[in-house]
């Protein structure tokens, strides 16, 4: 039974990019498991490898090392027909609804495209009926069926992106900052839509974001990344109640809270900037900004250990805080 629940397993996934100055370690040894119908939130600052991780799992880019098991099958190196079939099971919602939709296609053409490619319906009428159905699911009025993306606002465009990604009824959807380009009132509408879809269709999400309040709202489990490495992973509630890694703590304290009870609350302001991910030195990647860093941190990479049930941290001094 436990086996059946498991949908996605990522093992020691690595993605290095070649640059003129050396290898850029975008994703460096990320492992996690994700059960059906659950949502994992991936959090981190810009450049920490969140998007690369999502894209590597989806096979939009090839990994350097490691394995991705999807539905019990190793998909790290599948190609051709098999890969095409895989695409109908895993989808992505992109961050920017302005650049991820083809400006020369109408709403119906955009939503229809995956159905055409995968030859889901033989009959054109059936396909068109499905497009209308999808538009209804995501809350887009049918009268927009022949409009172009530029005629619509950000919220509606993001709804098109969602309709396109659920067109083939995938099992797994990577949501790459799907609401960060939207206004708060629209953001709430889209978040509600995504949660409804999950409840109705049992989708499994990987939710990539830098907005911690959003990730808390939507995720069951949260993975915190720093420069391509995992620093902390635990359930959403526990991460907010009991963060252990100094980076997670700093990240949480930096969220501005819309409540005057917190006015003047001093965020733990971290010194310095993110170290370069190109040929990073041995040791903890966060050491340069960490208030607790010692020589050990600068020379030895901390292991990702389970400090309490289902709570993993990569820090030499997790018990000394």
């Amino acid at each position, binding site marked *: 039974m436990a086996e059946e629940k498991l949908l996605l397993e990522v093992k020691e996934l690595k993605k290095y990019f070649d640059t003129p100055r050396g290898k850029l370690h975008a994703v460096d040894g990320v492992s996690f498991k994700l059960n059906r119908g659950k949502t994992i939130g991936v959090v981190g600052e810009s450049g920490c490898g969140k998007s690369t991780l999502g894209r590597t799992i989806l096979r939009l880019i090839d990994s350097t090392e490691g394995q991705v098991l999807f539905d019990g099958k190793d998909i790290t190196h599948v190609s051709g027909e098999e890969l095409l079939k895989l695409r109908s099971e895993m989808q992505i919602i992109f961050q920017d609804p302005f650049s991820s939709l083809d400006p020369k296609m109408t709403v119906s053409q955009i939503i229809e495209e995956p159905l055409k490619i995968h030859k889901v319906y033989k009959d054109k009428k059936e396909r068109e009926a499905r497009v209308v159905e999808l538009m209804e699911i995501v809350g887009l009025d049918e009268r927009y069926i022949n409009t172009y993306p530029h005629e619509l*606002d950000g919220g509606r465009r993001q709804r098109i992106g969602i309709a396109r990604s659920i067109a083939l009824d995938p099992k797994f959807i990577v949501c790459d900052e799907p609401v960060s380009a939207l206004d708060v*009132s629209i*953001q709430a509408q889209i978040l509600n839509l995504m949660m409804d879809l999950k409840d109705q269709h049992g989708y499994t999400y990987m939710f990539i974001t830098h907005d911690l*309040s959003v990730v808390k709202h939507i995720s069951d489990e949260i993975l915190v990344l720093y420069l391509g490495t995992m620093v902390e992973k635990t359930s959403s509630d526990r991460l907010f109640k009991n963060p252990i890694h100094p980076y997670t703590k700093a990240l949480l304290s930096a969220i501005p*809270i819309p409540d005057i009870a917190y006015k003047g609350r001093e965020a733990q302001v971290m010194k310095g900037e993110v170290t370069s991910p190109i040929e990073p030195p041995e040791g903890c990647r966060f050491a340069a900004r960490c208030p607790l860093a010692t020589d050990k941190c600068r020379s030895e990479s901390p292991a990702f250990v389970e400090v309490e049930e289902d709570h993993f941290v990569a820090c030499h001094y997790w018990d000394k805080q």
Partner: protein
Amino acid sequence: MGEKLLEIKDYSVTFTSDKVDFYAVNHVNLTVEKGEALGLVGETGAGKTTTALSIMGLLSKYGTKTDGEIWFDGKQLTGMKEKDYRKIRGKHISMIFQDPMTSLNPVFPVGNQIADVIKIHNPKMNQNDVNSKVDEIMKMVGISAERKFDYPHQFSGGMKQRIVIAIAIACNPELLIADEPTTALDVTIQAQVIKMMRQLQQELNSSVILITHDLGIVANFCDKVAIMYGGEIVESGTLEDIFDKSLPHHPYTIGLFNSLPNIAEKTERLKPILGLTPHPSELPQGCKFHPRCPECLDKCKSGDIPSLYTDGTHCIQCHLYHKEDA
């Protein structure tokens, strides 16, 4: 009550493009006192940036119609000659733009860009003094002066934003307008920038207008808040007036707060505002918010909505509270 530094009286801006009128700002009244931080909150298209550009005198002359008055430190800014405006802009009022990636000139070292502002407003200052002033300002924003010969692309996003802030504060302005200064930045860098802005505000005793859509930053930084919707200020007051949930609020303000996922307590489902923000060319009659308002009354659909429920500092533009008063 402190001394008034900036006063905007019944100010409106209309843009005309292809014979269509865009009502960007409608009858806005605002005052900022010395040393005060005002948060101007609203969503895309609410008229926040247009208001800011009006204060800076940076609106395009063509296709733009303005009405009303803006007073700064006893001088009227509206209708001022460009020559005179230039003496104020950058020296007495300056602005931090939203996107640090595009507001710096990529072909000049950052030190030169900071020095430019100083030289323009202090034409008699000699080069050595300018240089030491540049060093001093860079130190103030937390960037070592050795980096003044570097170009913008050699800095990270957070550092670029600090350079933009350095340019804005180079002449110790009395009023600093920050237009979404941290939207493009990560939370940890945002915390650094906000902390720095607060320090600078205290050191220089400047007033700040912080334009943002993030109520979290407002709660953290501002003394007064004005909430904009459809080019109007729908609610304004002190920070306590706006954030105290036991006080009455404009339905839009309530909707904004309900749209935010709460960190402190787990909410099962967000309560977003239904519908979409109206386009400035198609603003509804009556209350601009009425098509989306859950408490809309018949009288909201037409006519002027007077500012009501003025309780000292707290002001709400909504019919709902008038009923209670009468």
